């Protein structure tokens, strides 16, 4: 085997296949490195993704939901959509899967030191945002950043990801965790309303701040003007894109927007960068 062959996955063991949402369509997979040397080589940052392979079925790209300060494992929250994701959902704990990565760029957190961070997420596009929160809350790192505000919305409480962790975050004073659901539901004591409206209410300051936003296109479309109203410039708005991908290496040719490859030049782009690219995503 050629160790520098970027097409060959490393083996990982599925230690937990957890049903994340009430509709059962999203599972969170916790994978453990089988080989120590593979773990040492797998250095990643929040925002990156990996190709997860189910033997005999193929591979598909997913954002990494775990954070670098959670050693020994990788986590992926995956919606049941196609062949690979369905096979993953059906996989028994203890099975071996393949992982290829880390791929793509990451949220520019190093450049955001000293700033307030606003994180806005919707639906199940909260995976690399979870990674980011987990990373920023690391006691060794938290002091490098100002206020941390998180606005996270889902259609109903059952569709929120990482419910237990969110409860813990809500209790802390070093993160302002705001969850919202679209419409009132019995038993829900938190906020209700769509993410753009809640963002307007919460009104995080744009001064010395950056906003990382991930969610369904409709949420992004209506949150963007709110952020602009709050004074966020396109350079301060950081987004992560999705595309159909195969190689993840900038070769197979399908994930480009103009001359940029989402797999290699992205998936993280600032709104300022996206505005320079053709509207084809």
């Amino acid at each position: 085997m050629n160790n520098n062959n970027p097409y060959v996955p490393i083996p990982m063991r599925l230690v937990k296949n957890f049903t994340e949402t009430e509709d059962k369509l999203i599972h969170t997979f916790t994978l453990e490195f089988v080989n120590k040397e593979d773990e040492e080589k797998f250095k990643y940052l929040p925002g990156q993704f990996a190709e997860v392979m189910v033997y005999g079925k193929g591979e598909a790209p997913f954002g990494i939901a775990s954070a670098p300060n959670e050693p020994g494992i990788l986590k992926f929250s995956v919606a049941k959509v196609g062949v690979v994701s369905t096979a993953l959902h059906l996989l028994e704990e203890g099975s071996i899967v393949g992982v290829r990565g880390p791929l793509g760029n990451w949220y520019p957190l190093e450049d955001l030191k000293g700033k307030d961070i606003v994180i806005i997420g919707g639906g199940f596009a909260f995976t690399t945002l979870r990674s980011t929160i987990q990373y920023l809350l690391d006691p060794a790192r938290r002091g490098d950043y100002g206020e941390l505000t998180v606005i996270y919305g889902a259609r109903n409480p059952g569709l929120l990801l990482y419910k237990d962790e969110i409860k813990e975050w809500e209790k802390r004073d070093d993160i302002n965790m705001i969850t919202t659901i679209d419409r009132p539901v019995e038993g829900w004591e938190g906020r209700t309303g769509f993410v753009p409206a809640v963002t307007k209410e919460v009104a995080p300051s744009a001064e010395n701040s950056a906003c990382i936003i991930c969610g369904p296109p409709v949420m992004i479309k209506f949150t963007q003007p709110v952020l602009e109203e709050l004074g966020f410039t396109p350079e301060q708005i950081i987004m992560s894109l999705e595309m159909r991908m195969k190689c993840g290496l900038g070769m197979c040719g399908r994930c480009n927007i103009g001359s940029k490859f989402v797999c290699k030049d992205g998936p993280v782009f600032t709104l300022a960068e996206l505005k320079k690219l053709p509207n084809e995503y």
Partner: protein
Amino acid sequence: MIINKREIAGLLENLAKEYRVYAPVEKDGNVLLEVIEEGAEAALGAATKKPAKEILFPQSEELFSYQLSDEGLRMEDKIDKTKTVAFGIRPCDAKSMILLDNVFHNDQYEDVYYTTRRKNTIIVSLGCSEPESTCFCTSVGGGPFNTDGSDVLLIDLGEKYLAEAVTDQGKEFLSKLNLPEAGEEEKAEAEGIKKQAQATSEVDITGLKEKLDGMFEHPYWDRLHEKCLGCAACTYLCPTCHCFDIADEAKDKNGCRVRNWDSCMFPLFTLHGSGHNPRPSGKERWRQRLMHKFKYFVERYNATACVGCGRCIKNCPVNLDIRQVLAEIKAQDTGSEVS
């Protein structure tokens, strides 16, 4: 060096002892690049139906195989290290390999399948004394005797070929063949042929990239694709198209991962799992194909991703002609350029 045409068969047979030798061979009415085996007759001079990229980047290849067992997982990658000679390919096909090098060995990753074959392949191209009516290599930085990408260039002198070393690798290769030196007269004849040679058709691409810069939303794309069937022959047969698909094939505990040529002309190529498709119709796909070759590739690698081989013109079932398309694009009013 001089190679007598009568000696080509023997030469190839000898080479085949040491190398895997690809050469154009007539087969079922087509000229294809085939591995030369004993007794096979090369059809030098003819253009191959498929581009020579398939030597480095086969239409279908196994990347690795795997086996699941109680002890774990065994994997074996299939990197092809065979010493290879591509004999008698067209200069346009040789040039395409330089363009593909940019893709398969980019600033971050190396495709070891491609690069290993590339390192182990000697390219002996044959200059085109009679370019076809669909050829336009001279318009895209090439030429019937262009040496980009070749290790050796052959020039047809009627009864014989004059062989010129282009690279050190080519020089070393030729020196092993014990060929007679070319005389002054033969050299002069070859120079004369080279000077005269020109592709039969032309299209002016100066300023094309700048034109395309302002054309993403242009109405020109609305109608261009209307007669296109989306068969993708243009991309499969293009020496610079490099898109591929990756899939797994498995039975019980044994499986392998394969890669196959794919095409931006297919709707499935970009279809998301959610059902969303950023290039849902022929309009976006044609725009992508054109923009990729003449704008995006230029931005990324500072080269046009077209070598003017004309295969897309010759093989299009509805006679869409890229030369005409490029000329039309150049004639469009984009309302923004300064003339």
